[in-house]
């Protein structure tokens, strides 16, 4: 799954010359980690392997059956039967259209709203308030947010109950197709509400690299309205930095599974949901069809990204003309209001949905059109609580191990970059984003087949390795900026006092970066807690996490159980963030200078 965690906004940049301590042969001081320069230099290589090997192996495991090679189903060698079967499926056109339209429209709307919010409000007091409102949404797992939203907007849902019958006259819910509508509108709304906070935080991180305050002052002096001024002066520089996150949102929106299962249509479903259904059919022939579908999904994402890139050029061209057109767009308050309204609506929808889950988890009898349960009971918590705690333990264990490995690799990469004084290769950034852009359904089924064939399909380790593929990029993105922004003159001071490079890293830099380090860890845990498909496919059904349990229960439609499990999942994702905020303050309670992070 894609982002659940906040990407830490970078602290104000100082232009960092990472060139100061480049004597990589530090004195061996008995620390096991990165004790020798050679081992440190291997870390970026291992990191690239950890990201690339699962994706490449999984894609290979998808290509083979897609082109007719699946010995288990009695097909050997090259053929196009899988593609013929895929194109014979009558729902294909519709499913493809759904995937494309949901991905493109939700990304476009989320991006536009972020622009309206940042352009229209950045630097104002309302903006701080909006930011505070949207940030917590990031750590709410997609599945839990989707359940909550489904209950909120259904014709018999909470909004309708609050208005009925006194305002609507409904004693029975109207027969309206809202949730799981064939156009995917509710699915798009859910994706927008979840993706907008992610793009917003990425934008804020990018803003810190741009002299936006000065630009804004200049454009205002020239008489431009807030929005147009920001768009022509700041946005081009910001977009260059959030391009990859936008691609991630687009790719994710086109291929999401868990949210689409809950909010998306079923006659037919989106392509990725259908692929997962084929994957789990006892008829092995359908595996080949699923593999072909997965490659089609990959092609669709590739084509959409290509089209998006072309659109970027077109918008840039048009934007240049617009920028020099002379229009000032001074009266942009309606746009600003739209942005503010959308931000509040997204946040309110997700939070009210979670509140709905909470009420259901304590509900006794509760029928339409009652706005509240007739009785409050603890039976749902008594019933599911003990098991939820047990599963939460497994979930957090997987998350903790994956995050620890990710942190070691990320710190190793950044420290190697620092000591060698070479900034990261731009290609490395693409490697980092690759697992987030290649649709999960395109490589996870292939990976599952490969692990099975190798006999490495049991236990928690394959699941942890699969989670690492998704956790690592987010941990890197969250930690790289604060790490690089650290003032390296402090390293010079420490070195002049006799500290080795390792001593500088572990006794000066890491303690000073404790707060962003913990935030990065919390981001990683939230990402891991949200993973549905990797756990389901790689775990072979034997590994239950809060995500798999919650989505399995969604099929049953028992809202009380979904309430308990959805809240447990949300809690598992939120708690680490709370700790990441609280711990530095506690640890450095008497050392004010260390609390800046």
């Amino acid at each position: 799954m894609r982002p659940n965690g906040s990407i830490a906004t970078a602290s104000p940049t100082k232009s960092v010359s990472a060139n100061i301590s480049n004597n990589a042969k530090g004195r061996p001081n008995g620390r096991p980690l990165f004790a020798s320069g050679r081992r440190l230099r291997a870390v970026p290589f291992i990191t690239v392997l950890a990201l690339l090997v699962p994706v490449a192996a999984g894609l290979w495991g998808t290509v083979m059956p897609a082109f007719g090679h699946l010995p288990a189903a009695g097909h050997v060698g090259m053929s196009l039967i899988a593609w013929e079967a895929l194109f014979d499926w009558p729902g294909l056109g519709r499913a493809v259209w759904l995937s494309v339209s949901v991905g493109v429209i939700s990304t476009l709307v989320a991006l536009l709203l972020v622009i309206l919010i940042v352009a229209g409000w950045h630097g104002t007091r309302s903006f701080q308030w909006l930011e505070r409102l949207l940030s917590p949404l990031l750590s709410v797992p997609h599945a839990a947010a989707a359940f909550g939203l489904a209950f909120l907007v259904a014709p018999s849902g909470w909004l309708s109950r609050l208005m009925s019958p006194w305002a609507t006259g409904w004693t029975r819910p109207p027969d309206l197709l809202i949730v799981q509508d064939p156009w995917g509108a509710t699915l798009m709304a859910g994706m927008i509400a979840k993706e907008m906070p992610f793009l917003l935080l990425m934008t804020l991180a990018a803003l810190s690299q741009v002299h936006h305050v000065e630009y804004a002052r200049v454009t205002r002096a020239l008489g431009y309205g807030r929005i147009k001024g920001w768009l022509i002066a700041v946005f081009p520089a910001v977009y260059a930095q959030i391009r990859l996150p936008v691609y991630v949102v687009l790719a994710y929106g086109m291929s999401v599974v868990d949210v689409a299962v809950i909010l998306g249509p079923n006659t037919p479903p989106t392509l990725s949901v259908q692929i997962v259904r084929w994957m789990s059919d006892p008829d092995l022939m359908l595996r080949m069809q699923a593999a072909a579908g997965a490659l089609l999904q990959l092609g669709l994402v590739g084509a959409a990204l290509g089209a998006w890139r072309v659109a970027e050029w077109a918008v840039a061209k048009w934007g240049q003309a617009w920028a020099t057109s002379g229009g000032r767009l001074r009266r942009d308050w309606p746009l600003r209001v739209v942005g503010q309204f959308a931000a509040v609506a997204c946040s309110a929808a997700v939070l009210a949905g979670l509140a709905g889950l909470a009420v259901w988890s304590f509900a006794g009898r509760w029928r339409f059109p009652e706005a509240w349960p007739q009785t409050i009971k603890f039976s749902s918590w008594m019933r599911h609580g003990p098991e939820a705690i047990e599963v939460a333990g497994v979930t957090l264990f997987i998350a903790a191990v994956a995050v620890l490995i990710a942190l070691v690799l990320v710190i190793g990469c950044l420290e190697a970059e620092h000591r060698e004084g070479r900034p990261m290769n731009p290609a490395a950034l693409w490697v980092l984003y690759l697992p987030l852009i290649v649709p999960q359904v395109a490589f996870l089924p292939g990976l599952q087949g490969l692990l099975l064939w190798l006999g490495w399909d049991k236990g928690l380790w394959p699941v942890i390795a699969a989670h690492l593929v998704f956790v690592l990029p987010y941990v890197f993105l969250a930690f790289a900026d604060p790490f690089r922004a650290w003032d390296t003159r402090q390293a010079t001071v420490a070195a002049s006092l006799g500290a080795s490079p390792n001593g500088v890293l572990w006794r000066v830099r890491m303690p000073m970066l404790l707060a962003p380090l913990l935030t990065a860890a919390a981001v990683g845990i939230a990402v891991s807690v949200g993973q549905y498909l990797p756990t389901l496919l790689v775990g072979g059904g034997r590994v239950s996490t809060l995500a798999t349990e919650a989505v399995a229960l969604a099929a049953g439609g028992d809202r009380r159980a979904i309430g308990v499990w959805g809240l447990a999942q949300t809690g598992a994702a939120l708690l680490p963030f709370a700790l990441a905020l609280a711990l530095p303050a506690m640890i450095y309670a008497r050392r004010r200078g260390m609390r800046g992070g």
Partner: protein
Amino acid sequence: MKHLLGVTAALALTSPAFADPDPTNWDAVTAEARGQTVYWNAWGGSTTTNDFIAWIGDKVQADYGVTLEHVKLTDTADAVSRVLAEQAANQDTDGAVDMIWINGANFASMKQAGLLFGPFAEDLPNWSLVDVDGKTVQTDFTVPTEGYESPWAMAQVVFIHDTETLPEPPKSAEALLAWAAANPGRFTFPQPPDFLGTTFLKQMLIELVDDASVLQSPAGDDFDAVTAPMWAFLEELTPHLWRQGRAYPQTGPRQLQLINDGETDLAISFSPGEASAAIANDQLPETVRTYVLDGGTLGNASFVAIPYNSGSKAGAMVVANTLLSAEAQLRAQDPNILGYGTVLDMDKLTPAQADAFEALDLGIATLSPAELGQVLAEPHPSWMTKIEAEWIDRYGVAN
């Protein structure tokens, strides 16, 4: 690639060949079972079923030292495909699945492909209590079980209705159509391939077909002709369904939520006690009752089967046997717990056990065996498979 092959070959050579336990030597089975972990792959969408399985887990742990892990499936086919994939990868020992809640087409395909361990069911000690003559526990959708799966619950189709909004429910296909036309949007069924949705189609087919006996043999060239009346019926019914048939509930329990939400008035269920259990759990209003159609309704048994490559076959047999114990069956039939019909023969139980079943309050919405009436035999699984595929082509991708 060569290296990988070498590694797998080495693994295959070093793994010892396990001898399967002998079901007729029960003492050896229980001895072997101690300490084993059984991964029971069972549909996990119903909290009542999950609780019951957890209770069985506590019991086999206390009595036999067997650890039971419930792998909660969204679809039984997931477990079947897992075993198939393992067979394809030559993983013939200690597979991921030790026991599957199964019946119908999944059983037929697994048995045919030689993916099941057995025969074991009729050697279980508690098999002596099973009502072999009165209940369809030795055939599964016309396919003989031959000891490759062990029954644990009886199911029969009932319809659930809210007496407050629907006091006189329709009791035939014709009446259903007339009522749905007069009350559009108040009825739906789970979306095939969900088994309950397909069951609804079969239930209608049995009533609408000229001669229901053809359904007992495999479907062949006669499929179109035999099923034509059912498709004509659906063509008329679908526009009157909830959301005009443009969306469907994905599972059976989701229908209960719809009734409780006031969205629909009628639902199909394969468990006569489900409505009573749901009322007890606040999931349905107290005004809900169940009924069967005038022409009778479909009935079948739920089974458990053990894959050929399970590493805990002894433990799985202990679980299967425990499911057949009078205590477990009594618990399963209690509507406050699960509300599933028992597979046991009352005459084979001790008087005290039989009295306990007799004394069981089946719940306000549960029909007595007499009221449940005639059980219609399941058609051959091939009908189900074909109907499912045809429905998906006609309605499953219609939007």
